[in-house]
């Protein structure tokens, strides 16, 4: 029975003082009891807006009702009908802007914690030691190449494999998952969760080819020569942006990608047990206000930094990071500096960064993004001592695949031109989606793009019509 008098259930978390000394997951997840209590809040709308709010269209009310009934197995099976990555999505999707923002309850109360429930059922299965492998349609005999094993690629691979196509997933790194493994820290998304979701994919027949750099090891045209009939490019936005200010190449100035890759993929926080080092020092500043910046700054504290700062050129209101992550960072003691922009870095004799010069900003008129534009306050420069700088201002398009694929059109920023509804590119048989099309966005948007592309690819494979 829906009961709107029950408050939205809080997520149990590791205490801030403890969690900044380890890389274990911060949010501990619902117990079965909490999950059922939360699920009972759902009023089972006749016209559920939450489904429309979900880029991969999970049948949310049905799965929640099954949770309320205590049938967690069926709840998970319901989610897996449209989403093979519930453990990932339940953790890193911006639910507050998607399914939860449109929840009818949010008008008078707080929305149902859909993301936390999704995570709960995914974790429940692991705790039970089960693995529900979804059924797969009979083989169609068609071969598909999916390039990049991030959220977009994983979705395409899952959808097409379930439709009976033979899918090979090509990954340049030595582990599958893309940004889920190199970018998002263990304390927000345990790597075992990603590994498990990739394992399910292999169980439904997806072949994983790691250490394979499409654009170098083989070009897209060579994949077609190898017998693949269709190709999805889920390359991500993998070329870090810098601000092009003096001193940015000093030692100790990291791109967020380098910093997080050392930590997450290469486990530098376990150096010297693991061979990849990282050096953090006492004061770290992270430039930027997105989720990646939050991940980097919170990692810094865990690596032993005495002070970890966010330097953001607008105000807190404009910060693109999820509220939950900003709050987690605040609780952990991250120092937020708003309306500030670095103008240059100053190094010591060894070429290592020792200071940053910062310029104060004020907010002017809204710009094209609708956010108020930061305007420098002249003469407001001042210096701050730093040991480490992390530049987390976004990523551009990696040129490897576009430059080695004739006929594949890119726009002026180097992103691949693809139809928003189908993911079709300008090259026959090639689809693209995720950050390499839209620029840096979220995990779930890449998955949504993958879902649309998979539909279009299935149609092409079965009809031959482009």
């Amino acid at each position, binding site marked *: 029975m829906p009961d709107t008098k029950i408050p939205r259930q809080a997520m149990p978390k590791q205490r801030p003082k403890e969690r900044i000394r380890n890389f274990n997951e911060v949010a501990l997840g619902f117990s079965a009891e909490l999950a059922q209590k939360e699920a009972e809040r759902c009023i089972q709308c006749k016209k559920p807006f939450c489904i429309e709010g979900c880029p991969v269209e999970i049948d949310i009310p049905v799965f929640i009702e099954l949770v309320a009934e205590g049938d967690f197995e069926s709840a998970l099976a319901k989610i897996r009908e449209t989403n093979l990555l519930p453990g990932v999505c339940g953790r890193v999707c911006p639910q507050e802007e998607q399914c939860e923002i449109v929840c009818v309850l949010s008008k008078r109360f707080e929305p149902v914690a859909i993301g936390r429930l999704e995570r709960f059922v995914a974790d429940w299965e692991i705790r039970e030691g089960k693995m529900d492998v979804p059924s797969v349609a009979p083989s169609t005999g068609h071969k598909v190449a999916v390039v990049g094993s991030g959220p977009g690629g994983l979705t395409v691979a899952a959808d097409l494999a379930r439709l009976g196509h033979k899918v090979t997933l090509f990954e*340049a*790194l*030595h582990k599958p998952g893309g940004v889920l493994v*190199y970018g998002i820290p263990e304390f927000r998304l345990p790597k075992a969760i990603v590994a498990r979701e990739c394992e399910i994919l292999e169980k439904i027949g997806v072949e994983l080819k*790691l*250490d*394979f*750099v499409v654009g*170098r*090891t*083989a070009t897209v045209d060579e994949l077609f020569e190898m017998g693949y009939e269709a190709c999805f490019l889920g390359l*991500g936005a*993998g*070329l*870090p942006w*810098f601000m*092009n200010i003096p001193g*940015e*190449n*000093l*030692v*100790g100035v*990291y*791109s967020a*990608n*380098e910093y997080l*890759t*050392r930590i997450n993929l*290469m*486990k530098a926080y376990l*150096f*010297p*047990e*693991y*061979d*990849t*080092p990282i*050096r953090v020092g006492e004061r770290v500043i992270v430039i930027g206000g997105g989720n990646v910046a939050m991940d980097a700054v919170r990692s810094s504290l865990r690596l032993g930094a005495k002070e970890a700062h966010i330097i953001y050129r607008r105000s807190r209101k404009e910060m693109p990071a999820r509220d939950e992550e900003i709050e987690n960072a605040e609780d952990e003691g991250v120092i937020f500096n708003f309306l500030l922009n670095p103008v240059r870095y100053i190094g010591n004799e*060894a*070429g*290592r960064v020792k200071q940053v010069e910062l310029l104060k900003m004020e907010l002017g008129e809204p710009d094209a993004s609708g956010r108020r534009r930061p305007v420098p306050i002249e003469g407001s420069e001042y210096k701050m001592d730093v040991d480490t700088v992390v530049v987390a201002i976004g990523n551009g398009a*990696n*040129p*490897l695949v576009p430059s080695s694929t004739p006929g594949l059109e890119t726009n002026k920023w180097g992103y691949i031109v693809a139809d928003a509804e189908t993911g079709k590119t300008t090259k026959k048989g090639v689809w693209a989606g995720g950050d390499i099309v839209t620029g840096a966005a979220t995990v779930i948007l890449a998955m949504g793009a993958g879902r649309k592309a998979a539909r279009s690819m299935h149609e092409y494979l079965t009809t031959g019509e482009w």
Partner: protein
Amino acid sequence: MFRIVERQRVNPEVNRFVIEASIIAQKREPGQFVVFRLHEKGERIPITIADADAQAGTITVYVQELGKTTFEMGRMNAGDEIADVIGPLGNPTPIEKLDGEVFAIAGGVGSAEVLPIARKHKEAGNKVIAILGYRSKDIVILEEEFRSFADEVYVTTDDGSYGREGFVTTELADHLEKGRPIAEIIAVGPAIMMKAVCDLTRHYNIKTMVSLNSIMIDATGMCGVCRVEVGGETRYACVHGPEFDGHKVNFDLLLKRLASFKEEEKISLERYQAAVGDEHTPWGAQDA
């Protein structure tokens, strides 16, 4: 996993490995490299491909023992497996018939990197002059291979124990003074050696390409650690290089960035040596 077919110690600090990596063997071109990760706890390090046998499906690399990973690799043998070999990476060296001579200049283990480039220049119909520099006689490698195709081969050693006493620049300076018709120079070796070559050839305005050995992780453009300044602009050695116009490279910055993790590298190496009970100090580590 990638199996080591052959391991041979070619001098006290360098091992030659032949490794099964079929796709890379068929695809690679001179100037390209691979990234190794030895095992689950290993780091990712770039190594230039010296040679390949497309039919056998093997690549050949020469690895100098400089730090923990290369030292550990030097203790691997035929039959052992490397967890990851990724490539071929980087842009192939552009090679065409040139109007003039090509000088291929190598320092130490850099000779393994220059060898395939020099050989392809020869195949393209260019006159190839090789200048190979080493610290001393007992670490000279690949001299015979260069002599088998190059038009002229000069060897220098820092201590004069073999060939001409001095650096590659000592030898090169004579050729420059004689006004030889040099169309292009390719120089590969320690950053400090490439810098010295560029400082010399700059006065003669001779095109000098260098292959930059910056620190890399993913080596596909994603992490940005390998960034170098070329002509005042930031470039990524892995996707834009590894070869650049040496006269435009900011070598001072490169040298500082190469030393980024010197202390950590020392800790890592000493820890490993203590664990395996090997007190042999790699020569490169002494220099660093």
